[in-house]
């Protein structure tokens, strides 16, 4: 909320309306804080959007633990860890880019945004590799789900301990199918959000290079940054839940 104590007749006083201030806002502060509130509410909807998948995960983990005990052997923890570190680093560069925009270091901000894009690309490449690896072994839970039995035996058989012995293979295939359904659901939706993030960062990068932002008007960079941090935050929870199951 803004309140003009020095309210002059036409409400805007000496400084004419700067180009970057929308006509229906009174001051830069009102525009920035409205934008900040708006993006935070949007992030709230994103959190609830993912809550559906986390709920499906929780229901299956609570009711069918065997699904996760069998399924998680199919994932490679090192790749997951690399992706986590890549995303955390991209969060750092994004936060730093917002900082540079606030202090008018336009070139530094552009470089940092480019690095963030690079990290996002790396993340997708690693993800793509994982998906291809699954696809190669027929581990995509489509209508005719025909996993490569020998590969399953090699990944899950090797970790057979007391709890999973004597389970018939059909049950194991069902478990793997449900796990992969949840795995592709969560990481797929997250990957889509990474792609949307890339598009947003490219848009902000273009405007930074064009010099739209200054000390008083850095809203878009900050808000895309917040969206990107949320994407990273969701991955921070996805990584242990999917990759680090015991």
């Amino acid at each position, binding site marked *: *909320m*803004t*309140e*003009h104590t020095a*309210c002059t007749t*036409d*409400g805007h006083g000496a400084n004419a309306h700067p180009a970057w201030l*929308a*006509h*229906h806002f009174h001051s830069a502060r*009102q525009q920035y*804080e*409205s934008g900040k*509130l*708006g993006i935070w*509410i*949007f992030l*709230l*909807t*994103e959190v*609830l*959007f*993912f*809550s*559906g*998948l986390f*709920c*499906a995960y929780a*229901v*299956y983990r609570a009711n*069918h633990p065997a*699904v996760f005990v069998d399924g998680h052997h199919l994932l490679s923890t090192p790749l997951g860890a690399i992706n986590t570190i890549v995303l955390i680093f991209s969060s750092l560069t994004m936060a730093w880019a917002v900082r540079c925009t606030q202090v008018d270091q336009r070139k530094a901000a552009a470089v940092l945004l480019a690095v963030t894009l690079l990290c996002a690309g790396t993340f997708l490449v690693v993800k793509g590799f994982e998906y291809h690896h699954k696809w190669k072994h027929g581990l995509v*839970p*489509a*209508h005719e789900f025909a996993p490569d039995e020998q590969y399953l035996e090699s990944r899950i058989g090797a970790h057979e301990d007391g709890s999973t012995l004597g389970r018939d293979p059909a049950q194991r295939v*069902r*478990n793997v*199918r*449900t796990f992969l*359904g*949840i795995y*592709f*659901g969560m990481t797929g*939706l997250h990957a889509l959000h990474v792609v949307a993030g890339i598009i947003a960062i490219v848009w902000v990068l273009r405007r930074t290079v064009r010099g739209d932002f200054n000390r008083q008007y850095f809203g878009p960079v900050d808000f895309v940054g917040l969206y990107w941090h949320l994407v990273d935050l969701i991955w921070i929870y996805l990584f242990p839940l999917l990759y680090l199951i015991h």
Partner: protein
Amino acid sequence: MAAIPDSAPAARPAAADNYLTHARGLMSWIFTLDHKRIGVMFLALIWVAMALGVLFALILRAELADPGETIVSKNVYNRVFTLHGAVMIFLFIIPSIPSSLGNFVLPIMLGAKDVAFPRLNLASLHLYVFGMLFFLFTLFVGGLDTGWTFYTPYSTETNTWVIPAVLGAFILGFSSIFTGINFIATTHMMRPPGMSWFKMPLFVWSLYATAIIQVLATPVLAITLLLLAVERLVGVGIFDPDKGGDPVLFQHFFWFYSHPAVYIMILPAMGIISEVISVFSRKHIFGFKFIAFSSVAIALIGFLVWGHHMFTSGQSPLASTIFSLLTFFVAIPSGIKVFNWLATMYKGVVHLTTPMCFALLFLILFGIGGLTGLFLGAVAANVHVHDTAFVVAHFHYVMFGSAGIAFIGGIYYWWPKITGRMYNDLVGRICAVVVLIAFNMTYFPLFIMGVRGMPRRYHDYERLLEKNPEFFDLNVIASVGGFLLAGTLLVLAANLLFSLVRGRPAPANPWGAATMEWQCASPPPHDNFASPPPVTDPYDFGNLTYDETTGGYVSAP
């Protein structure tokens, strides 16, 4: 205020600069950022959606008038009641008040030039049109027959067009989320200096509470519909029992959105009723804080009660008992509101104009609709009447009878401000009385049939007549009432459209309301106010006097 002289010759209003004449051409409408134009376009589209929904309803009523197969086969009947439900909920009643009247009136009520994010507002409109196209496509390729609830496993195995309809609802969900984000930001950040939370009109409070629900509940619907579409395309098995899934899990996901959604429908309606009853009783609203906080209370408690839709669905008795108890808590704020409205009318001067008639009609129909919710909240009674015609009657009384009637009342209340024209008030009042009769004729028989043994979504009740021969008469009464009701809605719409051509030019403040939107011209200029007018108590009608010449109210200096 004396009866409005309806017969005054409709002098064409001077071509003053208002939001309608500010810019010309189709492009200026399709890509406008002005919240007023977006509100008007939403209003027009929502009318089209309502007409489509009513058409489906008439087919259903015509079919049910006779026990056997009357005009449509079983498959077509199943598709018609599904489309009736889906179109009426996703296309009409969820966006109805917030997107049309809310978009138009909220910024002016706050003295602002526009909502916080005009482009987001336009995106909401475009998404609504895009979602509507999906539904029209589904309609033309043959519709779907799953019921508007899309319950799995039927929705995943039927070969009717489920995915376009599901994607249509998915897109309309985002249109609703964008409206919610806009209203929360506008209410927080765009209030004029001096307008604290308790100097805001109650319609803004109810839109704020509705926005909370839109923003918190709709994303869960989005993920549910996405999972359903993925389930149909790829067969992942989350809801399919053969692959380890659980159909009742889908019902939990679906009703976590769909119960708060019924409060998205009713809260804005209650906001309109608070405004209308206070203005036409010429008295300050009674218990402002209680009405305002009961809106927010309904919004928040509304998230705890979704299980009462699933008492007989195999839900565990423990969860059923918890949901039943919480359902009774959510009934209390609605009661508080109704009693406060009645207290507002005490010692006032009640002007029975059309909006007031619809507000009183709301009180009667919401009385019946809200109270029959108690039957459905109590588990013992719910088990007998769940999924029967009783439930159909209950939600028509609450959705159509309360939210729909308040929407019509709201349109009639703000029509002079939106179009700058006065309508024929007598026609409006007569229609209100006819709606009272026709509405009860249509839906009260369903209460009786539901309790005596008529399940929901039944195409053919021939064999039920052996035990309950009165079903035939009750269905005939309901069908006749249905057609009478549809005809009255047509007259109500015609009355408004006719006023566009022949209506008297409307003064700035025809009803003598004290909220800010009546202090600018009707129709309002492009920028609403040069600078926000001084903030006064929105329900203090002290210094407003009726002025014969303009037929409206002016504030004494």
